[in-house]
């Protein structure tokens, strides 16, 4: 991914307009485009850049470029913009932006949301967008009032002159003719009025009254509903289906083959669902059809215990490190395939008519949605309007948009506006998965309590090639299928034969100060579709790494906090969260049968340490409390950071205690929440989050809360039961 640097000069390209005219692009990247912004400009509305519209009545519309999947990004970005615009974010109307180059993620170079980067990447650009608009308003006010701009200041959406207050809206007409000044300075942190303050969420009201609009809520006149039957074994094509009988089912309009299976279109969802369920479909046989979980695990074991694999990192002298160690441990850790299981199953509405296509869906990549609809409808991307909605959860899942391909193919073939809805069974059985991993760590500790050598190997499928293959046709709708297959194949080959996929081993070796380090990766891929899952590689590597560190602590008789402090001297920020959490741990009072486990991990530029308070009774693991210390730089909205830590911990606890997909005959066995359980309220611990004070640039919050929780719980379970559990989900062995 390309990182774009934002220069102040790029803001000179701003061209302001007032309602009715063509909106000229405001480019963060400096490569301005003539494509009109996807903004409805109200009568007299002033649009200084792609993010703001100020109306004569002094209302402000904020166009959120990043996708709101629950991580609080609409609150965060409106806080950044409002800080410099000097306008209360809670008084803005929050709108989800359409597709335009100006909405590209400055940390990615495309219009996408992920990697916990939104607040980090927009910390300066979004404030500049606000400062820039405020500067224009001030110049307009100076002109209208006939005073020098230095005599003016602003206060919460008003220009203040000599104790008189004028709403911004009264200057929008003049503002439209004014270019932004070249240098607009930003506030120093001491002057922040909204950043760092306790506040609610800008989307909380809509999400408490049923008013928030998700993709599944879109309704259109003449809407038809589609349900797709897909192969239980990934990759198997349709051999045949009973079209005639299915077409006769009540309400059924059409039955058709699409790339992923067979689609049934009907007047209502229930009609489509029933007819699709009753349809008989036969599928081709593919090699994966002969595989079970045990076979996959055996292949991983074979690769782990052979010389197979590529060495990524290789530093120092591993043999010398182990020779110098007082004690050496070697353990294997297993983590299974997992689903994201967002509460809103995949869905999309596609309407194609009069040379235009409209698509409604909550996605992590609106530009990819546009590209896919263009590719599969034959329209130019400029003729595809993307209507972003709230995402009913995502966790990485809504970065892959095969459901938009399906909806587009069905809309083209049927000539109807189509709403496609996946069932929960479709979501769990036909989705994309967090890869399973088999990891081996060998570590040696010297007489001084320092880790001298660290040898890590991971076996499993790679995340990046599948994601690249899915993104290519979306981002480059003009590429032919052949080119997509060719480049996609290269991605497979690259990560198998040439380099270790960083997403596959991230977090396995970086946190501690071992001078002698080796990381090996063996790719074993059976064709289970894979993608990013909240915290990606860290979701499993932290379990292996922090379990091994605890094993070293126990073997050497060290204190879990002191040992980590001693081995993180080159990672001062990580060391500090360990120190703070260690002090909190000392102060915890425990009832007799409760035990504490400690873990710390660095991910998405953020450092987190967690303590899990656990009891083990009658073979059951119960997590009572979690204390979480996080350093994510400036906490733009501290309560949103707390919420993300809580969410990451509980998402990680589902994986630690319940999450497991099993494979039988190449198919995912679990089908709904009865056999793929999600943590429920009665299992959720109390959570205390401590945010380390900081004025540094903000870093990730959506994902870093997750990685430490599974090892923190496993380390506590060891203290409670004497059992060292090296597989997720954590299952106690029955003991006589």
């Amino acid at each position, binding site marked *: 991914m390309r990182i774009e640097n934002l220069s102040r000069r790029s803001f000179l390209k701003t061209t302001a307009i007032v309602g009715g005219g063509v909106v000229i692009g405001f480019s963060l990247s400096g490569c301005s485009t003539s494509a009109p912004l996807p903004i409805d400009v109200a009568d007299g509305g002033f649009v200084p850049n792609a993010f703001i519209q100020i109306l004569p009545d002094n209302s402000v519309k904020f166009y959120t470029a990043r996708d*709101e*999947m*629950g*991580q*609080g990004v609409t609150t965060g970005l409106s806080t950044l913009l409002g800080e410099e615009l000097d306008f209360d974010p*809670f008084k803005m109307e929050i709108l989800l932006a359409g597709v335009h180059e100006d909405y590209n993620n400055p940390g990615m170079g495309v219009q996408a949301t992920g990697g916990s980067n939104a607040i980090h990447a927009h910390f300066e650009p979004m404030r500049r967008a606000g400062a820039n608009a405020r500067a224009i308003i001030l110049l307009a006010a100076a002109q209208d009032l006939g005073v020098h701009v230095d005599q003016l200041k602003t206060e919460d959406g008003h220009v203040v002159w000599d104790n008189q207050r004028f709403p911004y809206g009264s200057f929008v007409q003049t503002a439209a003719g004014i270019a932004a000044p070249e240098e607009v300075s930003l506030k120093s942190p001491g002057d922040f009025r909204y950043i760092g303050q306790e506040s*609610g*969420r800008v*989307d*909380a*009201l*809509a*999400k*408490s*009254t*049923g*008013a928030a*609009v*998700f993709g*599944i*809520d879109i*309704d259109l006149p003449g809407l038809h509903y589609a349900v797709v039957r897909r192969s239980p074994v990934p990759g198997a094509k349709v051999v045949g289906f009973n079209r005639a009988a299915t077409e006769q089912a*009540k309400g059924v309009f059409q039955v058709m083959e699409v790339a992923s299976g067979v689609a049934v279109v009907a007047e*209502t*969802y*229930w*009609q489509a669902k029933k007819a699709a369920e009753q349809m008989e479909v036969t599928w081709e046989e593919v090699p994966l059809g002969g595989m079970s979980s045990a076979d996959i695990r055996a292949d991983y074991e074979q690769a782990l215990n052979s010389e197979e694999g590529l060495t990524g990192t290789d530093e120092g002298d591993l043999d010398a490190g182990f020779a110098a160690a007082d004690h050496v441990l070697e353990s294997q850790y297993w983590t299974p395939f997992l689903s994201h*299981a*967002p*509460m*809103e*199953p995949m869905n999309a509405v596609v309407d194609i008519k009069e040379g235009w296509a409209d698509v409604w869906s909550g996605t992590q990549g609106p530009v990819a949605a546009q590209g896919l609809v263009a590719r599969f409808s034959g329209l130019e991307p400029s003729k595809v309007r993307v209507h972003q909605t*709230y995402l*009913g*959860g*995502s*966790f990485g899942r809504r970065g892959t948009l095969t459901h938009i391909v399906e909806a587009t193919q069905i809309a083209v073939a049927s000539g109807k506006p189509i709403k496609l809805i996946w*069932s*929960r*069974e479709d979501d769990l059985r036909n989705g994309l998965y967090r890869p399973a991993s088999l990891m081996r760590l060998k570590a040696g500790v010297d007489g001084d309590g320092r880790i001298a050598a660290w040898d890590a190997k991971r076996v499993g499928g790679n995340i990046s090639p599948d994601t690249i293959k899915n993104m290519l046709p979306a981002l480059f709708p003009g590429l032919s299928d052949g080119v997509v297959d060719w480049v996609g194949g290269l991605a497979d080959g690259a990560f198998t034969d040439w380099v270790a996929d960083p997403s596959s081993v991230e977090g396995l070796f970086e946190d501690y100060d071992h001078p002698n380090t080796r990381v090996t990766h063996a790719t074993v891929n059976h064709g289970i579709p894979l993608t990013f899952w909240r915290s990606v590689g860290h979701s499993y590597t932290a379990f292996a790494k922090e379990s091994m560190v605890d094993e070293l602590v126990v073997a050497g008789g060290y204190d879990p906090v002191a040992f980590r402090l001693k081995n993180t001297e080159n990672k001062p920020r990580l060391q500090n969260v360990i120190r703070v959490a260690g002090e909190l741990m000392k102060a915890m009072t425990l009832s007799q049968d409760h035990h504490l486990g400690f873990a710390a991990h660095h991910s998405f530029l953020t450092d987190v340490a967690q303590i899990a308070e656990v009891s083990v009774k009658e073979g059951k693991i119960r997590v009572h409390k979690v204390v979480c210390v996080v350093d994510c730089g400036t906490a733009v909205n501290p*309560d*949103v950071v707390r*919420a993300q830590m*809580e*969410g*990451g*911990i*509980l*998402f990680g606890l589902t994986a630690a205690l319940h999450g497991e997909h099993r494979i039988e005959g190449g198919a995912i066995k679990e089908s*709904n*929440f*009865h056999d793929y359980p*999600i*943590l*429920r*309220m*009665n299992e*959720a611990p*109390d*959570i205390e989050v401590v945010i380390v004070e900081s004025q540094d640039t903000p870093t990730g919050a959506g994902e870093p809360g997750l990685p430490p929780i599974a090892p923190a719980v496993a380390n506590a379970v060891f203290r409670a039961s004497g059992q060292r559990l090296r597989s997720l989900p954590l299952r106690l062995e029955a003991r006589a």
Partner: protein
Amino acid sequence: MIEFELNGETVRTDEAPDTPVLWVIRDTFKLKGSKFGCGAGLCGACTMHLDGTAIRTCMLPISAVAGQAITTIEGLSAEGNLHPLQAAWQAYAVPQCGYCQSGQIMSAAALLESNPNPSEADVEIALAGNICRCGCYPRIKKAVLAASESSGLFKNAITSEEVIS
């Protein structure tokens, strides 16, 4: 033709009798606040009130509610007002993605109706059928307890503007 009461008004539908209540409410009567999560009564996203009791509507056939009263999130409080739970939901910044929250609030509202002063354990039992994948449980629990009668914090119906300011 099936007749029932929806948020205080008598309505009729000629959808097939086996159509789940959820889809009739969402697609025929266009009230989209109740959500589809599992289709199997396992997650609670579709929770509505049937004569005051919290029920899962993704499996309940529309024929089963003939002559009875359905309340959805849209009908939980009088026009322009918030239910105390909805006010508490703002104060505790409960929602993340928000998709499950209608169901959470409807389950909690039925609990407070029958038990105005629930214990923490009562809340956990009443809401154990509502899954939140984002992990809002600690805040949901706090908000429900804060909306209880004895807390009195959100007793009077509050408009959204009052809550926000």
